[in-house]
């Protein structure tokens, strides 16, 4: 007993010392989870299915931007404005690749099933098949060891908050992530395009009576979710793990957890769930060995669902405004 108390006391001390740096790191990971979670939740909102191949959309964004960075940076060390331009190019490359792969998935893995009114199980199998195909293709083409992404900037501590260093890498993640998430939120809440997505999520048939082209709206949700996940793949690839054929598996599973945590089908829920999961995971490092992080993440999912099956905000893509 005394041992246990001592254990927690010493870890609480760690937590106090590391609080701010764990918080910053957790938020950074959380922003990336949020960006990936959006794709799950949007597709679910309109189609009521989980796109389990979304992990490979993320991976595609990572690889596409990796090749772009390799071509543009090589062995040089960019700085100044060129760094900013490179980050923007990386985000765009990842985003475009993610959107393209997501669009292909919709066209090849899902639309034929939708045309035939296939049962939900068929979508799941199709998704797993597409995911297998994509990551094995990537593994075969690009090798099965992770590659580190040439860095568009020299990473360093930009400033400290309460003694915790904030690296440039985290700032890049925050800026890109927050801009993309807020843009999406405004897009869905205020534009005609967003209104068509919300209408389709609430009642697809009636939306079509209003003149909404449902097929196009479905493609749109895949494209938007794919762009965010692809850009997140770039941001993730900038980190120490780099890019690899299997890079999508765990982050995407976490993002799916985040989407369910926030309330699947709910855009803001996905963002909140992502941030929350990132932070909780980060803090858990203070208490348990880092290898237990995944156990903690999925443990939280189970707990939340036990007490609140619809997630934190509940399901409502329609009211995502």
């Amino acid at each position: 007993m005394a041992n246990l108390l001592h254990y927690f006391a010493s870890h609480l001390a760690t937590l106090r010392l590391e609080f701010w740096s764990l918080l910053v790191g957790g938020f950074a990971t959380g922003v990336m989870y949020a960006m990936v979670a959006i794709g799950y939740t949007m597709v679910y909102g309109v189609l009521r299915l989980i796109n389990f191949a979304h992990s490979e959309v993320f991976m595609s964004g990572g690889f596409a931007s990796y090749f772009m960075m390799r071509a543009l940076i090589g062995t040089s060390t960019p700085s100044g404005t060129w760094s900013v331009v490179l980050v923007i190019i990386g985000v765009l490359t990842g985003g475009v690749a993610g959107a393209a792969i997501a669009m292909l998935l919709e066209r090849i893995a899902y639309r034929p099933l939708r045309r035939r009114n296939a049962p939900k199980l068929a979508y799941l199998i199709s998704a797993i098949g597409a995911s297998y195909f994509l990551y094995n293709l990537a593994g075969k083409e690009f090798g099965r060891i992770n590659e580190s992404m040439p860095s568009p900037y020299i990473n360093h501590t930009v400033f400290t908050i309460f003694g915790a260093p904030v690296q440039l890498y985290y700032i890049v993640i925050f800026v890109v992530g927050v801009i993309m998430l807020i843009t999406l939120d405004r897009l869905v809440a205020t534009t005609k395009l967003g209104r068509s997505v919300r209408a389709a999520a609430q009642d697809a048939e009636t939306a079509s009576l209003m003149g909404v082209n449902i097929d196009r709206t479905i493609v749109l949700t895949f494209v938007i979710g794919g762009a965010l996940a692809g850009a997140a793949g770039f941001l993730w690839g900038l980190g120490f793990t780099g890019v690899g054929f299997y890079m999508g598996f765990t982050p995407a599973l976490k993002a799916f957890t985040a989407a369910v945590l926030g309330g699947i089908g709910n855009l803001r829920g996905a963002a909140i769930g992502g941030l929350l999961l990132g932070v909780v995971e980060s803090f858990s490092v203070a208490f348990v060995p880092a290898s237990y992080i995944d156990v903690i993440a999925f443990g939280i999912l189970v707990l939340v669902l036990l007490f609140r099956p619809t997630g934190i905000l509940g399901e409502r893509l329609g009211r995502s405004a």
Partner: protein
Amino acid sequence: MLEVHDAVVRYGAITALHGISFEVNQGEIVTLLGANGAGKTTTLRMLSGLHAPQSGQIMFEGQDVTTTKAHMFTSLGIGHVPEGRRIFPQMTVEENLEMGAFRRRGSYTEDIERMYETFPILKERRKQIGGNLSGGEQQMLAIGRALMGQPRLLLLDEPSMGLAPMIVDTIFRIIGEIRDSGTTVLLVEQNAAQALRLADRGYVMENGRIVFGDSASNLLTDARVRAVYLGENVES
């Protein structure tokens, strides 16, 4: 204005419409009568592209619309007030009205104001979400939403369903006004007596077939219609 020739609709093994033919002329209110499952709703859904007919032909203003997709119909000039109203539950009243104008270009704020004049209650509720409205308010919103698309033909599916008699009277008065303002109406109603008093013509459907059609005044006095659809309620 609208001509349906021999239209057949099947859901899997079930044939919902066995080759129906009828027409709706400019400026009319035409009503489809029949028991539950007679095919009235399927007919309206077919006319909005929600169920493409397996055979037969649908002509609207001289254009073949048999295989036209559902989302094209509002631009063609056909508005649909679906069964059960189908308001977007998490959109505000105003957003629902705006959805009705989804395909329109240019400004439609004047039309929204006009809807608020026709349905003052909607103006009071403009910022509330659709799911929180009463049945009558939802029905008015569903009609207003369809009118926002500026239809020349309005399809109305059971607009009186589940509403208090006073509200039903209001809805029927408004349907009359819609016709008077130049929009042709195809009305599906359980409330046969009230529908026939408002309509110009009617068709009676049974088991996916149109068994007969006539002017509304003749149908009101028709022995078969009186026996089956009007029962004791009709005062002649």
